[in-house]
């Protein structure tokens, strides 16, 4: 093992849920400070890959490591403090109201931190300011718009001051203007030396920020390397060519018969 383990190492990881293979022998290494996009069609296994890293889906073969610690075998010892996760679904909107601030403060909890400390509210306010939602602190989380809720979820991850940010479809339900804001924010975080891994349906405004793209198809990695930068078909680079010379990564063309059962995990 190297002295400073990589944030993410997947060695031949296979994931199966209820007899269905969702990932098949995936190898992936994300080095410290990298910004990586996970691309692919619906059901290609992007979100499953992120969840495998986090030990939240049954890994049936291989091993997933976070900063050198296996989340398959030793999840309790993994350095969760260094991880900031922004899930695709932003928590059920239940009958009980909760303010955006209350949601953000949950990001400060951890294995040995079951209670909040005095300074935690200030830290949560700072994180909300960082993503431009400071004024929403006292609003009920359930009434926020998609873009607002998404930013609150990012604040909840950032309040942990994570070395590794994992974002699952951060652009879902976010308008174009806000997307640009997100890109700036993540660019700044990247410059601070944080490692960023994003599940994306299309590159959107993130093309310039990313160092590398990993494309999945039916549970396997089919491309790992340069970003398909082409804004227009015709100027496509080699990576984009691999993706059917498509200017964005709706891989529906690549994988027309995507199995509906893989669309979402329970």
């Amino acid at each position: 093992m190297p002295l400073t383990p990589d944030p993410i190492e997947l060695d031949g990881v296979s994931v199966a849920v209820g007899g269905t293979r969702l990932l098949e022998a995936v190898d992936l290494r994300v080095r410290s400070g990298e910004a990586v996009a996970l691309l692919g069609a619906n059901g290609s296994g992007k979100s499953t890959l992120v969840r495998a890293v986090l030990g939240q889906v049954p890994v049936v073969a291989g091993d997933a490591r976070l900063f050198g610690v296996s989340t398959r075998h030793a999840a309790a010892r993994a350095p969760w403090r260094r991880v900031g996760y922004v899930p695709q679904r932003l928590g059920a909107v239940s009958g009980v109201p909760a303010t955006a601030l209350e949601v953000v403060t949950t990001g400060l909890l951890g294995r040995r931190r079951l209670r909040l400390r005095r300074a935690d509210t200030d830290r949560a306010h700072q994180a909300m300011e960082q993503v431009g939602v400071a004024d929403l602190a006292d609003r009920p989380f359930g009434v926020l718009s998609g873009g607002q809720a998404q930013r609150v979820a990012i604040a909840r991850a950032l309040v942990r001051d994570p070395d590794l940010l994992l974002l699952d479809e951060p652009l879902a339900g976010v308008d174009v203007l806000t997307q640009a804001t997100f890109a700036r924010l993540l660019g700044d975080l990247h410059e601070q030396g944080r490692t960023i891994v994003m599940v994306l349906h299309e590159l959107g405004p993130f093309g310039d920020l990313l160092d590398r793209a990993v494309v999945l198809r039916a549970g396997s990695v089919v491309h790992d390397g340069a970003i398909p930068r082409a804004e227009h078909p015709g100027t496509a680079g080699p990576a984009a060519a691999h993706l059917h010379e498509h200017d964005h990564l709706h891989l529906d063309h690549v994988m027309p018969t995507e199995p509906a059962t893989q669309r979402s995990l329970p």
Partner: protein
Amino acid sequence: MSGLLEMLTVPLFQRALLAALVVGVSAPVVGTFLVQRRLSLLGDGIGHVALTGVALGWLVGAATGAARADAYAVPGAVVAAVIGAVAIETVRGRGRTSGDLALALLFYGGIAGGVVVIGLAGGTNANLMAYLFGSLATVGTADLVAILVMSAAILTVGLGLRTALFAVSHDEEFARSTGLPVGALNIAVAVVAALTVTVSMRVVGLLLVSALMIVPVAASQLVARSFRQTMRLAMVIGATACVAGLVVTFVVPLAPGAVIVVLAIAIYAGVAVLRPVLARARRRDGGSREVSRGDATHDAAAGSAR
């Protein structure tokens, strides 16, 4: 008024009042987490299982020749309720059987089991009535001590771990990624819910236990804006309904458990009716700042990172 003060000197009333107050405060704490998890009926499921526990305790009492036939009824209820609650949580966590179906099975099994077992113990269904509908008037000193100890445990877990339990109930996937011991916290909620059921059993009865956990939360969330506020207000509503209900039944001869629940529901109805008025008042004095803030402009003008 003087009649009420006179009542306060009666030890029986004092015990009943203290039991009602303590239960009224602690049941909504657990209820807040149950409502948040959409498990409002969990308390009912546990309550039905607890009935079998009561009967099993009775059976043990009869078999061992205990001084009082019901000596082991409450311990039996605690054990059965905890087992039932942990079982429901395990089923829910695995995601195999729907929680809905698991609850239904507990409802039927719990009641039928209780009636069968009480028969085996040589008792009658009448013996179960005190547990089904509550019997505040028979709360003895030992019962009161048990209620106080269990309520202390409920409040310690429910309030002490409030943020962690909120995190797990709000977004389990994220909570897991922070390293929180999600499984243990889920079990903690289940166990505390089971304790609440057995504690409330003497006050409102197993059939109405859940109402004491859920109705104050239902009323509170109509007007509260935060989780913290919801819980606090629910505690106040629960305590108010319990104490007021008890006082009413010392004046009018009615079953305290039912009166308490009817009062709680009346409070809910009152809050629901008054809510538009309250909302308008709030908008007028505090919320003008918020109203002027359009969503679209806000999204566009958002700042970037430091």
